[in-house]
């Protein structure tokens, strides 16, 4: 059975290691924070200017001066710090953030990503995504394997305007965990109850299947 959004987030949480500073994009990535193990130390950076982002506030304790990049009210953990946007992107550009998790509309087999614009239809802007994908060395995409029309989002080449080139290292979808290699999408794991053929059928780009493919452990 394919994963739901929480399932994707739960699987991605296993990629978060002790001592990591992590930037989470809007959508499924935000959910990842809920599944990170308690026994490791991880800090979340939000590019609007906080390191050490905590949980959402209790009702009545919201502070208009304390939000995340999704404009949601948040809290700060002990040891948190606030800084300006230039410093924030200095952290990102300078590769001080260990892991970036973000959503995508399309990913190509060479690691290109598109997630900010559908010409003529949707133009919300790239926000910090272009900075993140151009700088980070460890970029995991969290998304559904296919779009609402049932078309693959893992393509030979992106059809939408790019956000970044050759940058995605791993993709976790409702169907599979895939590594982006020099030779194409390499299937690492399938979702529980999902077959290699299911993944193959939902993947337009070149899918590399080597040996037995284990099932995801959640």
């Amino acid at each position, binding site marked *: 059975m394919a994963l739901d959004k929480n399932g994707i987030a739960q699987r991605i949480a296993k990629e978060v290691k002790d001592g990591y500073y992590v930037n989470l994009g809007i959508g499924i990535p935000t959910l990842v924070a809920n599944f990170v193990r308690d026994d490791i130390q991880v800090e979340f950076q939000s590019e609007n200017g906080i390191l050490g982002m905590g949980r959402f506030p209790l009702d009545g304790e919201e502070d208009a001066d304390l939000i995340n990049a999704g404009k949601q009210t948040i809290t700060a953990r002990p040891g948190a710090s606030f800084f300006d*946007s230039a410093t924030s*992107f200095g952290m990102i550009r300078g590769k001080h953030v260990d892991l970036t998790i973000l959503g995508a509309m399309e990913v190509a087999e060479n690691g290109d990503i598109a997630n900010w614009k559908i010409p003529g239809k949707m133009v919300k802007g790239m926000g910090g995504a272009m900075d993140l994908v151009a700088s980070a060395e460890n970029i995991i995409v969290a998304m559904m394997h296919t779009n609402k029309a049932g078309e693959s989002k893992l393509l030979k080449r992106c059809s939408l305007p790019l956000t970044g080139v050759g940058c995605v290292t791993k993709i976790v979808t409702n169907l599979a965990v895939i590594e982006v290699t020099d030779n194409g999408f390499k299937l690492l794991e399938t979702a529980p109850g999902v077959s290699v053929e299911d993944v193959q059928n939902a993947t337009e780009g070149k899918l590399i299947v080597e040996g037995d493919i284990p099932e995801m452990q959640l």
Partner: protein
Amino acid sequence: MIIKTVDSVQKATQGVKDGMTFMLGGFGLCGIPENAISELVRLNIKNLTCISNNAGVDDFGLGQLLHKKQIDKMISSYVGENAIFEKQMLSGELDVELIPQGTLAARCQAAQQGFPAIYTPAGYGTEVAEGKETREFDGKMYVLEEAFKADFAFVKAWKGDRAGNLIFKGTARNFNPVMCGAAKITVAEVEELVEPGELDPNHIHVPGIFVQRIFQGKDYEKRIEQRTVRQKD
């Protein structure tokens, strides 16, 4: 000390004109210069170019200037919360330059600090880099992005003193510090204006040299865009 105080938003905005380029601090509705924006709406100056990370919402923040069609061009990184914006942009009424958020911050900071341009990897290989110079350093590609030029920067701080020194609170800091001194005239509004010497000089985020005018703001609404709460454990 050199005193920067003006006693009203009217005096603080003196000199603003049709066709000018403004920088406006804030991220979403967090840390926006509410008083200055209201006055710009009241003055009804037109054909503005606004450099601001976001464009407010339909009835608050920069959305108010969009509503009155005072803005010709927006330079922003994300404008997803604003229907008026989308309508004006799709109809071609509004010229929009979308740029990466880190590039926006860096182009402000470059203007503040006298760097003519910066090299950033953001946007390389995308339409953002079209027509721009690109260059390799150590095997990685970068895009040359020029410092902004602006007439006024409007920022909002938590506390400030009469010498123009500013302190911000939480994530309301965001773009405000990097816009100070990045325009010909920087206007700061503050929630609390104090006497010089009351702020610890070690805690000042923006030295007064980057600010030309400072005033005590009023009636802050500080609207929350996405109120999100958790349940008690």
